[in-house]
């Protein structure tokens, strides 16, 4: 039998999983409440949550800053055409 605390209390491992899940999809009402409850008393996971969010923001920003590296289009076209002619 599971411990009665299982029903209201997430382990840190589970809580951090749900923190990641939250970035991608909505949590169910129960998940959301249980996660809040956990974060209310767990300092380590609260830090994890803040840091995870920061990493998320950084990754998005990197993606947004990515600039296209131009190709020499004429050269590429010639290369492709001669490749086609080889076929």
């Amino acid at each position, binding site marked *: 039998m599971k411990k009665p605390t299982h029903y209201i209390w997430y*382990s*840190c*491992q*589970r809580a*951090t*999983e749900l923190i*990641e*899940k939250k970035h*991608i*999809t909505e949590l169910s009402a129960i998940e959301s409440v249980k996660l809040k409850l956990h974060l209310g008393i767990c300092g*380590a*996971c609260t*830090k*994890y949550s*803040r*840091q*995870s969010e*920061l*990493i998320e*923001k*950084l*990754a*998005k*920003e*990197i*993606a947004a*800053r*990515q600039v*296209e*590296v131009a*190709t020499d*289009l004429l050269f*590429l*076209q010639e*290369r*492709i*055409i001669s*490749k*086609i*002619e080889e*076929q």
Partner: protein
Amino acid sequence: MKIWVIFGTDMNNTPVNDLVKSWVKQYSGELYSWAFYKTSDKELSEDMVQDTFVAAFKGFKEFKGESEVKTWLYGILKNKIADHYRKEQRRSTVKLDTTSDYFVNGHWKESESPKEWAVTDEKHLLDDLKFKSVLDGCINKLPGNWSAIIRLKFIDDKESKIVCQELEITPTNYWQIIHRAKLQLRKCLELNWFAA
């Protein structure tokens, strides 16, 4: 001219060769941009665009003009990009940390428990070249499938369902990879930057 007659089986009686060449002129630029956007790799993008046109040339008979040329070409390129990510995923031998590296019976291991980060100027962190190189280093240490996920998830802002389809992984696998990669990335940043 004789060769043209043999090849000249398309609907306009234009030699296939010339037709595909005109597509190269017309579409290679935008196909390249798209491939680059998906992979951030110049040479790889050029090769994939080239392979797309070669495949279009070879498979010309299958193109019956039912879809637009552009759509057809994008379709070929899209498959090439997905193949590339799948290959990279298979080739990847670097292992992600497992959750048991971080947790015992569901609790943080004492050594792994997150420390407070001193973040002073969050908005301009990425302008700090030293930080940027630490972050790049941490991301590069992750196995290939995580970089594929990062790319699809953040750059394309794709829904997880589509990321799973493109990489042929199950949703459960996707969660596990994201969770473990995040644990690893967090730890790396803490050790090399925030705690240093």
